[in-house]
């Protein structure tokens, strides 16, 4: 047997130790008495080679142009809340024009609410492994492109972002991680190893509470 298909059902009224459950939105396992836990089944994307974007002020895909030309998209379900995590490095070596580097999300899914954030940093140099001082924190509650780093007028620039968040989907559709530069520069490349994953937490319209929270 290489697969096991569970039918969607209402969760057990009392979590049973050792159980694996599926309610049609998410999987759950209960390893300890009353402590039902969410099993993250992540839709995952990781770049294996640098991906060069375009020198443009239009929003563009972080990982590729994608099927619709506006970026690699993941398809999400209606009335569902997802958690996501993305570690991304961008680097460029041309165009000495000051600009804002922005992150946002496109796609056809409608969003009830979103909150994401984390640490960001940048240097006026192409990416090089190592530490960079003076990180900034970043938070956003909109899918609209938001500045994460104000880049100086230097040809070489790298931007590092470590972001986590959750999004409540109204009507299902595509969800596209994108970046925008306020001036046509570079282009930037998204570096190999950058990744994003996203997994369902539960039904939209309320708080997500899994386990013994009370």
């Amino acid at each position, binding site marked *: 047997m*290489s*697969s096991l298909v569970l039918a969607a059902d209402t969760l057990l009224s009392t979590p049973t130790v050792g159980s694996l459950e599926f309610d049609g939105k998410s999987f759950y396992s209960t390893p300890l008495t009353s402590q039902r836990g969410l099993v993250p089944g992540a839709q995952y994307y990781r770049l*294996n080679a640098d991906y060069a974007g375009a020198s443009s002020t239009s929003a563009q895909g972080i990982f590729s142009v994608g099927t619709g030309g506006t970026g690699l998209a993941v398809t999400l379900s209606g009335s569902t809340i997802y958690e996501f995590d993305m570690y991304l490095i961008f680097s460029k070596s041309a165009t000495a024009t000051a600009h804002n580097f922005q992150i946002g999300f496109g796609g056809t899914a409608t969003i009830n609410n979103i909150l994401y954030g984390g640490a960001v940093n940048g240097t006026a140099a192409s990416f090089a492994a190592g530490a960079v001082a003076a990180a900034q924190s970043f938070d956003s509650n909109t899918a609209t492109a938001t500045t994460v780093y104000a880049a100086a007028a230097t040809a070489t620039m790298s931007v590092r972002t470590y972001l986590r968040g959750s999004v409540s989907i109204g009507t299902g559709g595509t969800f596209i991680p994108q970046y925008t530069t306020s001036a046509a520069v570079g282009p930037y490349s998204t570096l190999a190893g950058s990744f994003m994953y996203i997994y369902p937490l539960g039904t939209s319209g309320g708080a997500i509470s899994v386990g013994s929270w009370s």
Partner: protein
Amino acid sequence: MSQLIFTADPLTTATAGAYEYDGKVPYMTAQASQRGLLPSAQYFRLNTDLAGTNTATTQNAFGVGVTLSTSTTYAIEYTAVFTKSAGTTSHNFGISFGGTATLNNIYYGGSWNNTNTAFTSGVNTGANTFASNVTTNINLITGSTAAGRFIEIYLKGTLAVNLGGTLIPQYTLSAAPGGAYSTLTGSYFLIYPIGSSSGNINVGTWA
């Protein structure tokens, strides 16, 4: 029944409610067509402080290495706190990965901070970021001369293994500080497979 053992099989069309195993990664499909990978983590957490040595060497951060498979890409995460309370010899503190596994590529990064005191709980200002696409040492701190020092590191990343072998999280001191660092209780490292190492990892509906 306390266990289910799956044979490896090629993945086919994703079916809602399915749990699958392809020989590298377990998957679950919670929403129609949205197959997701399950983090099945090899996990190590220190239950007591691990004392290093007061030497200018590369040291095993957790005292262990983990064995990885050939032609497989993994996700990694660790949170670690290193601290010392003695020694004022100027030194650099860096992190790296050792072991016998050969890698096609790696990227990891995150945030870190430090103070010139031994570890205490609480808030510290002035965090920094780091990132790396190599396994070799990257210095987080240079020219440290304070007797007390603690360094907190929050790291995530991915790596593609060519030939399987061990992977060892490490730190390097450029000089013997006069007092050893310890990796503190509760520090942890986890790693789980996310697919083969031959191309982009694409699980789910990414298109």
